[in-house]
Each structure stands twice: as structure tokens, then as C-alpha cells.
């Protein structure tokens, strides 16, 4: 097996893991996010999502438009919880 290649640095997910789970049938970004926590760390997928979108497209034959992007939810970047608890 080749050396691990990190795609998601926040959650330490490798390209090999991504490929393995795609071949097991986890063929959407949401599936992969749930099973691997891919793109759910502090950077919210800025690094890994474009790489994984291309990998999904290559392995499933779908277009990147069909694969789509994860749902955008607030907050766009990390915010301390304290900011919401008091004035």
C-alpha cells in the first residue's frame, strides 16, 4: 500500500481512506463527512472538499455539479461560544 496522503488536515483523513469508503458505496460528500468527519474540522473543508469532489467525480463518473457541495451553515468560520452567551 502506498504512503498515506493527508487530504483533510483538520481531521487527519487520508486519500486512501476516502477511496476505500467510496468503493464501499459511500458515494456522496455527506456520506463521507459522516463516516470520516472529513471537512468538519476548524477549516470546514476548505482544503479537502475540492480534492474529494474531484476524487468522487473520478470514481463515480458523476460530474462535480452533480456531486455538489456540503450545505452551507453558519458560522462560516469558528467563533467562540462565549460570543453568543452574553452581551
Amino acid at each position, binding site marked *: 500500500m502506498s*504512503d498515506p496522503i*493527508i487530504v483533510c488536515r483538520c481531521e487527519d483523513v487520508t486519500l486512501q481512506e476516502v477511496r476505500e469508503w467510496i468503493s464501499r458505496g459511500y458515494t456522496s460528500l455527506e456520506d463521507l463527512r459522516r463516516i470520516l468527519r472529513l471537512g468538519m474540522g476548524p477549516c470546514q473543508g476548505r482544503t479537502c472538499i475540492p480534492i474529494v469532489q474531484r476524487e468522487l467525480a473520478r470514481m463515480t463518473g458523476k460530474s462535480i455539479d452533480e456531486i455538489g457541495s456540503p450545505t452551507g451553515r453558519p458560522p462560516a468560520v469558528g467563533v467562540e461560544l462565549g*460570543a453568543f452567551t452574553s452581551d
Partner: protein
Amino acid sequence: MTMSKSPAEIFGYSFPDIRETQLLIVGGGPAGLSAALQALKLGLKVTLVESGLELGGQLVKQTHKFFGSSLERAGTRGFRIAQELIKELTPFKGSGQLEVYLSTTAIAVYPERIVLLSQLSGKVFPIKPKAMIIATGAQERMLPFPNNDLPGIYGAGGIQTLMNQYGVKPGKRALIVGAGNIGLIVAYQLLQAGVEVIAILEAMDRIGGWWVHAAKVRRYGVPILLKHTISRAIGKEKVEGAVIAEITPDGLKDKYQVECDLIGISVGLTPTVDLLRQANVKMKYVAFMGGFVPLRDREMRTSQSWIWVAGDSAGIEEASTAMIEGQIASTSVAKWLGYISEEEAKREIDQLWARLGYLREAEVSSKVRKGLEEVLVTWGG
């Protein structure tokens, strides 16, 4: 029927005061600054938010002279363009027409046209604009290869930030991956800072950036290896070297092993569209423009009638075109809010489009022209 009490009345709390503004511009780079200036000149009240410590965006890192058109300040170095734009904004700050928030990030967009701003100090507060221009720029793409998480491996833009903004020399011996404009320019800036550059690798069979920039690094004797890429980084605690591979029809063929303590990855940018996604703006994947980009009409207006886009967040291009797009967006906002007539707006926007056309004539812009065909729409109603 009598009105029942609101939860706020029953439980005795109050909502935070929601500041109102006419035009909220998110991002203080070339697109946002130009949008702000145009809107202010047309009489609008503007709130400009910038997540960084200072205005200027990527312009403040650009030490080279721009070319293109004198209207877009060709012949001036990037950071000076930022200084000029900021200077032109100053009088409007004094008159209260412009409010600038630095170290402030827009983190949420709600359908009620409320935007949450988060400040470095820890404060979060809502603002309610009549219109918003998203000019959030782009982010760097990463390349998957073994050991790509070693310290000493940066996005090329990160190297620029360290050197040109913070005055930190990032290494002694560098390898650059990607011969687009950013890769070429960063290689040159590294040389200027006294860093040795071993080579620039380019996966394609041609140089992606402008020849002017390529010629500058070639004159220093730096090889640009076409159809080559990095196949792995070497090192334990930090980068100590790299293996360079040739891209052949049969896959990667390892060819050279080099020593270096710095690797700059410059394999393209992706538009930063988080807020547009939150706002459910219609988007499309256009590889030529760097990823998912918002559909927009000729006035840079998105599928959400109160949201416009400008600059790299609308599709990866250049600072000069970003500045014009910012002006187009603000002209359209001014028309929508009744500050200028339909005819005045049309005349202005036609002129701005002519300038875009001039800047996009070059061969390197052919991808942008193709990409635009896919995202330029006419909104009904």
C-alpha cells in the same frame, strides 16, 4: 382579537439593536475597495468589513507592477494600488458615509437580510443591509501527495503573506509547484528575498502565467520543468527534500531527488463562496473559474436579488478585473436603490464592460471568457 405578547415581552429580554446600512460590502480586497469607492461616489452609505488586520486583500502582498490598462492603474505596484484606493476612501470615512470594520468576518447570512459579523475581540453583532456585495476572494488549493502535511509546505500565497506582510523569510531553499502567475511571482519574490529557488514544476505542457513573470525567473537561472510535479515530500519533523516526477502517459515517473526546506504549492485558487452558499445563491461548477461560482447577470447580481458578487469569489481572475466588477456591482446597487437613473447606470456599466473586454482579450483570459458563458444569465422579473 388581541395581540398576544411576544416571547421577548413575556421573558423580559431584548434583541440586540440591529444596525442598518444601505450597502454592506464583505471583503476589503481590490473588488471590495473599488466597489466601496464607486458606491460612495454615487452617494450610498457603505459598511465595509474586512477579516484581515488591514484593507487591501491580496494587493498588499503584490510588489510587482500591474499591467493591462492605465484605467486599472497599470504600471503601479500592487501594494501601492491598495494604498491609493484606501487614500481615496478616507474622506468618506470622515463624513460618516463610510464605516469600516477591520478584523471582522461575516459569518452568517439569514434570509431576513441579516448578516452576522464576528470581530477578533470576540464580539458578534448583526447588521441589516439593503444590499450586499460579496467580495470574499479565494482560497488556495492543496495538492495531495505523501507528507504534504510537513511543516515547511505552504500555499504560495501563504509564503507571500509571511514575506511581504510580516517580513519573515520562510526558508533557505525552495521548490515551487505550479507555474501559474502566483507560482512565478512568488518564486521571483523568494529570489529577491535571498532564498534559493531550485525549480518551478508545472504539470501542464506549458506555462500558465504571464510570460513577463516567467522570463524574470528564467533570467535568474531557475528551471521551469513542464510536465513535472512533486511525487512526495521528504522529512521527519519538517521538510528536508522532495522527489520530483515526470508526468508520462503511464503515470508518474520519479526523476530527481532534491534537498529543500520550503515547498510552495501554487496549483490554483478556489472561490470563497461560503456566504453565498448560506444565502442559497444559485451556483454552478465551472472548472475554468476555479470551482463552484455564483450565477450572475451582467450587473454582477446573483439569484438573491439583494446580493451581488465581485472579484475572485465570482470566479478566479485578476485584481484588475476584480476592481471593475466591484464598480459594476455598486453601480447596479445604486440604480436599484434609486441613486442613479436606468440610463446613467446602463451607460456606466457599458463602459465598465468595455474595459473588462479589453483586459480579457489576452490569450490567458480565454478560459475566463469560456467560463463566463456558463454563468452569465438574465434574471427574470
